[in-house]
């Protein structure tokens, strides 16, 4: 059923694409059905766990080590690669978030992208992402997990770059992809090391096997996996891709960049927590990077007045909080992780969706230009109020519960004499104050504050607007607002059903701990130092909020060079520069140098190989002299090859080259290789025709002045290539080779019985070596695409055949030809003025 759910989501994405949802009013509601079905099915499957005697331990008794459902499908068993899925407490929590938030986002998308022709494409990518994400959290095999992990990277690239005509979207998508896919590479290495070291690729077995932290490889495994998880979850120093990814359409931001994908790293850390966490390296790495991320995100959120950028930094901060919590091994910390994940999804998701509604209704989402939206968007403002207060951690909202759980757990860690606990406590308290500050900023500036006079005057006259609030283009339809409303309603009532929710939380925390846990989230802990800290943080937060303009000024004075995006761009630029230099070296300026490099490089191995064998062995012992026909052919080939190089007219060169080719064809005929002969002949004909086509348009004089040393170099390359071919053939046809390694006999004997064909060459091509041929025709197709782009490129212009122009300009120009453009004989000119260089 787990695999079936993934397939259901994938297929429904395709169906949604096919029905052209932008033309169907009911498409939004239809799109909610598949994720809703998956949600309901998960709840149903977990029913024994959720209803079991009211306590998790009762539920656990029924279910062996927390597994609710396990499925396994063979894939590549020889690599340890299996499609195995397992639903336990942790994956249930994530699965419910993914499919549940997916319901709201799917509905919302239809209204956000109303009348957009590519809405179907967005749904397709969104559902493909949802399927990858579900596969990621349900996977019980490291390699299965990795495949789905990469699936989320690719689909998120498509989603961020959805508005592909905008440079910001393309850049954001590219950066996000490079960071997450690069992290993915590190992760793959880490997972393979872990699988080899742990002796199994099954996650449940690895988690159950003790002593992984004592391995010599442990630091390497840990660092690689942390790079993967940190890059995905936007931890410092990778945090900057997340704000850049805000160029995505808002439903994607809400779904990927707050509720689900960025939590994949957190999920991975939580999943491997039992196996890897029992080591100081784990604790300090998570504590330091998580703590830095949480402070950094919280402070930088205040700097931004774009609603989505603010929310993105707030998300970064929250992800830092979760990472920090995973540094600890106490039950309370693990519970705080679980509560934090759910509460964050239930307030940050709606906030993003609200930002999208505001953007959609007013045309912008800059806090400096928004005001008084509570008059024009009352329901949306209500949603924003509840969600933002929850983000700030005001009691009795869900965010408050999460914050209490967080502070409580690190405080108790500190109380038990753990210095890390105090560090985390301090950072969390400061972060909490900033959470309050930017939540209030968002709420006040966009929704609550009365409009200032200049904004009131700038509002269009035809829009009667007594309150001075930001005018709307068009009010959002109620179904549009329904999506965030549902989520925020769930988040608001959640604190009053904590006892029920505990049945979800406790098994999830137990999965992270790999043993039963006995702690419960609660709304009220009594008057403790933690509550005092919490209240203090709120007070400080309000102070920060009141002084936000000062803070913004200070923050905006930070130099740009410190920003990750800028640094990354520098890195990319230098990478491109290096690539250009190396391309200039290896691919040369002209076709001649390029093929020279390739041929010389190919000759080197044969030289090395020939040094290791006795050359006299290669020659057949009774050295037979060639017969008359062969001798004539050899002479013809030699003479016409020489002529090709020496003749002064292009047409003459083409013809003599053709003679070489046809003579080689005759060789094949003599030695009874009709297939080769046919192929060679056809290729010859087409080549000659092509060359005639192109060369007739070129200047008639073939030989531009060439330096002596260049000529000598060309002769050298030609000799080397000839020797290379000669010895290769000799080596292959030597008696020893034929006796020892030849596979010809196998093909000859099996062509008819195994391949049903008498033409051995063809049977090899289409049957014995069909996969090779498959690769070759794929290369052909790719070459055709490249050629298509090159030949149909608008600015390609052959040098004009009038000799005065071409001879005067071209020697210098072709020297400086641009290797990026890849054309040396063709000039590429800007269309407006071909003389500008």
């Amino acid at each position, binding site marked *: 059923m787990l695999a079936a759910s993934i397939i259901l989501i994938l297929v429904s994405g395709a169906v949604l694409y096919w029905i052209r949802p932008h033309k169907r009013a009911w498409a939004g509601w239809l799109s909610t059905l598949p994720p809703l079905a998956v949600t309901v099915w998960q709840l149903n499957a977990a029913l024994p766990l959720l209803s079991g005697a009211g306590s998790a331990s009762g539920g656990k008794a029924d279910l062996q080590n927390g597994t609710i459902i396990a499925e396994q499908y063979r894939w590549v068993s020889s690599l340890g690669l299996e499609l195995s899925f397992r639903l336990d407490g942790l994956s249930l929590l994530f699965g419910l978030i993914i499919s549940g938030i997916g319901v709201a986002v799917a509905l919302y998308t239809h209204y956000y992208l109303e009348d957009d022709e590519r809405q179907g494409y967005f749904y397709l990518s969104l559902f493909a992402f949802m399927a990858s994400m579900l596969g990621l959290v349900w996977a019980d095999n490291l390699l299965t997990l990795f495949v789905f992990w990469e699936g989320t990277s690719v689909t998120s690239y498509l989603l961020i770059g959805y508005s592909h005509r905008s440079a910001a979207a393309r850049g954001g998508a590219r950066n996000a992809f490079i960071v997450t896919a690069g992290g993915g590479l590190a992760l793959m290495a880490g997972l393979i090391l872990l699988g080899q070291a742990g002796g199994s690729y099954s996650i449940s077995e690895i988690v159950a096997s003790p002593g992984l932290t004592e391995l010599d490889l442990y630091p390497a495994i840990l660092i690689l996996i942390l790079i993967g998880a940190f890059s995905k979850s936007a931890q410092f120093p990778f945090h900057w891709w997340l704000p850049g990814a805000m160029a995505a359409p808002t439903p994607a931001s809400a779904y990927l960049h707050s509720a689900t994908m960025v939590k994949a790293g957190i999920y991975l850390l939580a999943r491997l927590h039992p196996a890897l966490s029992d080591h100081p390296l784990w604790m300090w790495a998570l504590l330091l990077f998580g703590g830095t991320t949480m402070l950094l995100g919280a402070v930088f959120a205040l700097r931004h007045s774009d609603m989505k950028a603010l929310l993105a930094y707030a998300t970064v901060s929250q992800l830092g909080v979760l990472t920090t919590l995973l540094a600890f091994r106490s039950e309370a910390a693990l519970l705080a992780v679980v509560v934090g994940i759910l509460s964050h999804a239930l307030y940050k998701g709606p906030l993003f969706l609200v930002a999208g509604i505001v953007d959609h209704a007013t045309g912008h989402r800059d806090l400096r230009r928004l005001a008084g939206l509570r008059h024009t968007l009352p329901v949306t403002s209500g949603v924003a109020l509840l969600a933002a207060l929850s983000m700030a951690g005001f009691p009795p909202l869900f965010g408050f519960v999460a914050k209490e759980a967080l502070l409580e757990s690190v405080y108790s860690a500190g109380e038990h004499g753990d210095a890390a606990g105090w560090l985390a406590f301090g950072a969390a308290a400061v972060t909490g104050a900033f959470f309050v500050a930017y939540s209030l900023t968002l709420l006040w500036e966009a929704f609550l504050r009365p409009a200032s006079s200049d904004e009131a005057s700038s509002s269009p006259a035809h829009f009667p607007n007594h309150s001075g609030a930001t005018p709307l283009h068009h009010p959002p339809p109620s179904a549009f607002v329904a999506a965030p409303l549902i989520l925020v309603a769930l988040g608001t009532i959640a604190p009053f059903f904590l006892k029920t929710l505990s049945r979800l939380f406790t098994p999830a925390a137990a999965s992270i701990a790999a043993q039963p846990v006995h702690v419960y989230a609660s709304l009220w802990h009594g008057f403790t130092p933690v509550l005092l800290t919490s209240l203090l943080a709120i007070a400080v937060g309000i102070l920060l909020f009141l002084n936000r303009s000062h803070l913004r000024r200070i923050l905006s004075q930070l130099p740009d060079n410190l920003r990750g995006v800028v640094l990354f761009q520098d890195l990319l630029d230098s990478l491109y520069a290096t690539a250009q230099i190396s391309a200039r070296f290896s691919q040369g300026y002209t076709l001649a140098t390029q093929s020279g490099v390739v041929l010389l490089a190919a000759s080197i191995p044969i030289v090395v190989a020939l040094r290791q064998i006795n050359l006299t062995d290669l020659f057949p012992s009774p050295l037979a002299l060639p017969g008359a026909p062969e001798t004539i052919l050899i002479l013809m080939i030699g003479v016409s090859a020489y002529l090709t190089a020496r003749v002064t007219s292009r047409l003459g060169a083409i013809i003599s080259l053709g003679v070489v080719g046809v003579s080689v064809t005759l060789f094949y005929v003599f030695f009874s290789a009709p297939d080769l002969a046919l192929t060679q002949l*056809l290729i010859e004909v087409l080549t000659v*025709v092509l060359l005639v086509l192109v060369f007739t348009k070129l200047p008639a004089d073939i030989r531009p002045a060439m330096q002596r040393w260049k000529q000598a170099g060309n002769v050298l390359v030609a000799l080397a290539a000839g020797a290379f071919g000669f010895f290769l053939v000799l080596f292959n046809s030597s008696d020893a080779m034929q006796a020892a390694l030849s596979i010809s006999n196998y093909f000859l004997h099996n062509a008819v019985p195994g391949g049903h*064909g008498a033409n051995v060459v*063809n*049977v090899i091509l289409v049957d014995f070596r069909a996969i090779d041929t498959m690769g070759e*025709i*794929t290369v052909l197709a790719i070459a055709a695409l490249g050629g298509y782009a090159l*030949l149909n490129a608008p*600015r390609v*212009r052959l040098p004009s055949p009038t000799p005065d122009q071409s001879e005067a300009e071209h020697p210098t120009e072709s020297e400086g030809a641009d290797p990026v453009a890849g054309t040396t004989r063709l000039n590429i000119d800007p269309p407006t003025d071909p003389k500008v260089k």
Partner: protein
Amino acid sequence: MPELYLRLLNRILTPLLLLLAIYLLLRGHNLPGGGFIAGLMAAAAFELQILSRGHERVRRSIGPYLNSGIGLGLAIAICSGFAGLLNGVFFKGLWFDLHVPLLGELAVGTPVIFDLGVFLVVVSVATSYLLGLSRVSDSAAPNPDGAPSPELSDSFETDPTGVADDSRVRNKR
């Protein structure tokens, strides 16, 4: 203007060449021939067309099918590989005998279908290169004032995916 004798030759030769290509394709499994050779043969037929009728007319008639021909060929080739999965292994040949009236017993197998895919890819790739090159060499016809022809600058305006859009190239200028 294409020569008269060439056009006359084309009338007779092109159908013959195409027939020959199909013949070579069909007999390829047992006698010299096969998808690759047949594809080149068909491309030669189209080249004759290009030379005699001009590349624009040929582009109009078969140009739209070339890119889909490449895709279709690859798809056929891959599908014939997947058909092998029914037999247990990717690309393992599946053979069955067909009784065709007039021709008698005909052995049909996935490798033959694979060869058809090869044929489609080769003919489409080669023809699209031939068309592209004849266009380029045509547009490089003597152009004394050095200004690009109107056709070229038009396509620059309307083609957003061309080299012109590459920001790195633009920055270098």
